[in-house]
């Protein structure tokens, strides 16, 4: 997966280099390349610290711990716990979607699972240091501030409006 992404990005770089060369000759093609390298070098200390923080957080949190904290909770307590667990659970979509399906099958309500997936997508603790490093503290803090209530609100809204669908969805999930 990562090799394929690298190849696609390399293709995009080549395309952009040709585009820049076409627009402004070798000078513009070189300017883009050098600009990229300069940004990378400037951000290196920040990136090293961000990756160290992400590595240590992943070590302290395991998927088993997070699943155990959440269990088959429901109601408002379950929704808040789901938000906390979603934010803490490490790993990509191939890890947290199976966990969400397991929670659903274990008896968690629609609101709990919506809150879990939304918190993982919008407030993942492991991604925060990288976001802080790459987007800057101001943007990261503002984004967190304005999305702070989104996962619990989505959980409550999903439960309030469509909570009666929980059993139908649960039955449709493959074991």
């Amino acid at each position, binding site marked *: 997966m990562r090799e394929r992404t690298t190849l696609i990005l390399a293709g995009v770089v080549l395309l952009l280099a040709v585009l820049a060369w076409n627009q402004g000759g070798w000078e513009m093609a070189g300017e883009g390349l050098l600009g990229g390298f300069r940004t990378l070098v400037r951000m290196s200390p920040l990136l090293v610290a961000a990756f160290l923080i992400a590595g240590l957080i992943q070590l302290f949190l395991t998927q088993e711990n997070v699943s155990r904290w959440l269990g088959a909770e429901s109601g408002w307590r379950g929704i808040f716990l789901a938000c906390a667990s979603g934010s803490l659970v490490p790993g990509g*979509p191939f890890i947290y979607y199976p966990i969400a399906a397991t929670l659903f099958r274990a008896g968690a309500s629609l609101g709990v699972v919506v809150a879990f997936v939304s918190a993982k997508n919008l407030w993942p603790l492991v991604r925060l240091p990288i976001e802080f490093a790459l987007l800057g503290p101001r943007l990261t803090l503002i*984004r967190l501030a304005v999305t702070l209530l989104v996962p619990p609100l*989505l959980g409550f809204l999903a439960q309030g409006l469509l909570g009666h669908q929980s059993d139908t969805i649960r039955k449709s999930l493959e074991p």
Partner: protein
Amino acid sequence: MNLATLTMIVLAAGLWSYAWWRRDGSHWRGLLRGWSTLKSTFPLLGLAFIIVGYATVLVPETGLQGWIGSGSGWSGLILALGMGTFIPGGPYVALPLIGTLNDLGIGLGATIALVNGWAGLSLLHAAWELRYLGWRFTAIRWTLTLVFLLLIGSLAQAIFEGVS
């Protein structure tokens, strides 16, 4: 050294000291895990930053600002959120690109809509969501999230635009 770098170094040192204090070898395992992630994502990061360099010299500022900038209103927010859902790759690829678009002056509301679109409604992740949670769940979560993220983008624009 800027404040962000200093904060991150202090935080990393604090976490590493806690890991060392546990005396279970987690200080070394944490270092190794961080290093191995950095090493394996370095080619991606390098390419993403070169794309950022080209985007800076190629993307016409005024055009982009007109489409999704702070003066573009609801249509700009919807477009930014839509663009976010199409951004492929993990944070190492998506965030430098979004950061560059922000530096080019697209405005805070559009930048936040891009991050939220990429993080909350990624089309690449939809395949996993459909596979594991089914179409009913996916449709419910996507509809509710879309409405909320649009409201959030406009809220961010209204409250924080101009705050520096």
